């Protein structure tokens, strides 16, 4: 089983305590009324889907309950690092 370091609990915990929550660092529109259809499409549906290093959100759902960010390699499934929500992209 993969162990994931929760930046809030500050320890490695079993993968099944966690839930994946999509790509990280997608900013909500500051002024939604001004968004064109194309901008909405990009915000809602277009994701990076890289082969390799991926920034993603995870939630320690069966633990402290918090969302955090992680850098995971989509080829090896290895977690490079995890960090608290709100911290700059690593």
């Amino acid at each position, binding site marked *: 089983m993969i162990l994931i370091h929760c930046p809030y609990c*500050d320890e490695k915990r079993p993968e099944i305590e966690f839930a994946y929550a999509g790509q990280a660092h997608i900013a909500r529109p500051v002024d939604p009324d001004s968004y064109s259809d194309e901008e909405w499409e990009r915000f809602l549906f277009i994701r990076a889907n890289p082969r390799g290093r991926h920034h993603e959100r995870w939630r320690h759902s069966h*633990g402290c309950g918090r969302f955090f960010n992680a850098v995971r390699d989509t080829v090896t499934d290895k977690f490079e690092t995890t960090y608290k929500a709100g911290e700059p992209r690593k």
Partner: protein
Amino acid sequence: MSDALTRAEPVPSAPFVGDGISISLAAPMMRYSLRARQPQALETLLGVKVPKKIGAMEEGIACLGPDEWLLRAPIGSKIVGGAGLPVSLVDISERAICLVVEGPRSAEILNAGCPLDLDRFAVGRATRTIFETVEIVLLRLAEDRFHVEVWRSFAPWMWTALTTAAHH
């Protein structure tokens, strides 16, 4: 009116006793979910220190998350209101029941369904975690005594899972 009500528990009232293990239902208790951005606000309210480290437990208060604590206390304990303070107290006494898993095989039997490394889960720790697919709060009260807080509707399944593991 309340005299007419009888308490129905979801698991057998007689303990399960096996080789190196006993599993029993803990007495009913008061449970509160405490939420606060600033733990100091809770300390002002309760008049006691609350643990700041997630996974730590002091005086019946377990820190479950960065802004979340579980308070367990005997029935009849006085819990203050908290009006005016930036805190939330929710009575969740009857949401869960507590199973006491006790004996030298406790950790082994819990690990039948719980993926936590219990060798590194010291006495005095408490955390939300999972047993198979059922969410629990696991508290270690002694080297070979654990409390398993499980939601009432999952309790019959939990009882069967633990006692089945204990049979093996």
